[in-house]
């Protein structure tokens, strides 16, 4: 096991990693930016280093200061969490070059899955179904030809992309030139890589992902799926649940088998997630996230596995302590993301001071958060304030528990997503289960039409 782990992140995930390390008896080192000096993740760690000012580029992405802090304090491993440097293959390599274990898959795996076009190609080779698409497009003429072949509507995507940036829906040939130019400019600006590819647009799919866990000795297991179809208009997830409701057993099994085959094909180690679009009985590989996911707690609750501890153990060279046959889910779990965002204003993120904070408790409720009353929400980072998770023996039980938990939750000082989550939980479509990714955006359009 490691001597000391440096946690290269902030917020709730930094606390989550801190807890896992402490339970394994491993001391921790936090890093923080100047505005995060009094943050909970700093207080819970055994040591802490300020690595820069507020803007992430100068602090949480400051590789030199982060590595230097790790070396000075005698850490022998770095956990990157999610976001920031978590899927940066060069950072992972730099860690290794300094004799620091990177708690995640090898840099080459991160690099090949981070390049969307390459990931699709690799998966197609492994027999994993992907949406019909193109290779990298060298020109607009290239794009036109590819779109003709695939058939409109198509989705233009940045190969370096993520978070919906550099992505455009193109309904017909007339829209292609402007969409190509804007997507390319956006990709260039956000990822310094303007390369695009095309894929067929799947209308109203469900977003279902499969958690995998592999050790360094070739053992790979899946820990079931998560339905993440409740997404904001920006395609960012808001509510996730596990197992996926209203899904036929053959499709569920196909998702699990496909995810395992895909993970094996790339020789995956550590925790990872394969994201799929599900359209009726068709499943399409979308992308693989080579890190811990925000929504990992719902899997933990129904499988009784501590994914972050497993990540650390695997990186330390330990064997996975269980086989596929040992793994079966119990009950249902739901997660609501409580963000400092204003749903009435296009989910615009907001900064400020929290004057009042109260979280729920009681049976079957878990809250992962870094905020307390008086916390300052800096304008520089992700707007996630807390993850409220509820688990129950049945889905109806989990929903009732989540409604109860959200009714106990109080956060004042910034607008939040609490009410919109409650609104979704009350809706008949959600209660019936199996809604698609257009569910939440279309509710907004409908609400506006009524006004």
């Amino acid at each position, binding site marked *: 096991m490691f001597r000391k782990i440096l946690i290269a992140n902030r917020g709730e995930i930094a606390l989550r990693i801190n807890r896992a390390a402490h339970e394994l008896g491993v001391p921790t080192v936090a890093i923080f930016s*100047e505005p995060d*000096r*009094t943050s909970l993740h700093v207080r819970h760690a055994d040591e802490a*280093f*300020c*690595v*820069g*000012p507020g803007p992430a580029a100068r*602090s949480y992405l400051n590789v*030199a*200061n*982060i*590595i*230097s*802090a790790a*070396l*000075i*304090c005698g850490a022998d491993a770095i956990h990157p969490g999610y976001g920031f440097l978590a899927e940066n293959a060069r950072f992972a390599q730099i860690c290794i070059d*300094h004799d620091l274990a990177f708690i995640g898959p090898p840099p080459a795996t991160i690099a090949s899955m981070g390049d969307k076009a390459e990931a699709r190609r690799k998966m197609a080779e492994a027999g994993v179904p992907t949406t019909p698409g193109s290779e990298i497009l060298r020109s607009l003429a290239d794009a036109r030809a590819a779109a003709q072949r695939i058939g409109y509507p198509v989705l233009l995507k940045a190969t370096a992309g993520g978070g919906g940036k550099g992505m455009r829906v193109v309904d017909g040939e007339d829209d292609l030139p402007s969409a190509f130019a804007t997507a390319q400019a956006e990709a260039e600006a956000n990822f310094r890589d303007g390369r695009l590819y095309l894929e067929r647009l799947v209308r109203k799919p469900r977003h279902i992902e499969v958690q995998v866990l592999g050790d360094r000795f070739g053992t790979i297991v899946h820990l079931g799926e998560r339905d993440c179809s409740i997404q904001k208009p920006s395609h960012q997830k808001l509510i996730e649940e596990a197992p996926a409701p209203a899904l036929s057993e053959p499709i569920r099994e196909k998702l699990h088998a496909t995810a395992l085959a895909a993970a094996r094909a790339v020789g995956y180690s550590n925790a990872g997630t394969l994201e799929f679009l599900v359209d009726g009985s068709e499943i399409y590989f979308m992308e693989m996230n080579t890190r811990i996911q925000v929504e990992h707690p719902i899997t933990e609750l129904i499988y009784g596995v501590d994914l972050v501890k497993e990540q650390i153990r695997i990186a330390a060279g330990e064997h996975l302590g269980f086989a596929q046959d040992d793994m079966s889910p119990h009950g249902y779990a739901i997660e609501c993301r409580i963000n400092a965002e204003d749903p009435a204003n296009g989910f615009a993120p907001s900064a400020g*001071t929290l*004057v*009042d904070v109260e979280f729920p408790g009681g049976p079957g409720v878990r809250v992962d958060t870094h905020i*307390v*009353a*008086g*916390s*300052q929400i800096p304008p520089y980072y992700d707007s996630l304030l807390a993850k409220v998770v509820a688990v129950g023996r049945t889905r109806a039980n989990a929903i009732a528990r989540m409604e109860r938990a959200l009714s106990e939750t109080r956060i004042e000082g910034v607008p939040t997503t609490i009410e919109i989550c409650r609104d979704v939980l009350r809706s008949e479509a959600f209660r019936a289960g199996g809604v698609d990714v257009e569910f939440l955006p279309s509710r907004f359009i409908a609400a506006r039409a009524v006004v």
Partner: protein
Amino acid sequence: MFEETVEHRLRPIAAAFAESDLVRIRVADDAAEIELRRAVPNARAVAPGSGGEQTNRTYDVITAEVVGVLHFQRPPVEEGYSLDGDRELAQIEALGIRNPVRSRGAGRVACIYVAEGQPVDYGQPLFAIDRS
């Protein structure tokens, strides 16, 4: 009303103050005014003159720009030294590279906050230079 103020406003302010480098903070609005003072100055944080004493002197506090290990320039400067111009006072060693720490002009070394071989992080005060 008073209890609410204490619970929701004073506590977070006090917590932030306790962890900050400040020696005095006053927060006021129409309803209330809260002033906190540090009884014993925080040795790391208090630059001469920034505390209670009245002085016309002006000080610059030189802080660390990188995370690393501090090494004084040889021969090391001492408190009270006069600097005739921009001088290299120390280096911060990070990833095998020695990053110079300069006085950024002439003055008197009023305070040295760090020791040889000490790890420093971003923004940590290293020297106070009296510019007057």
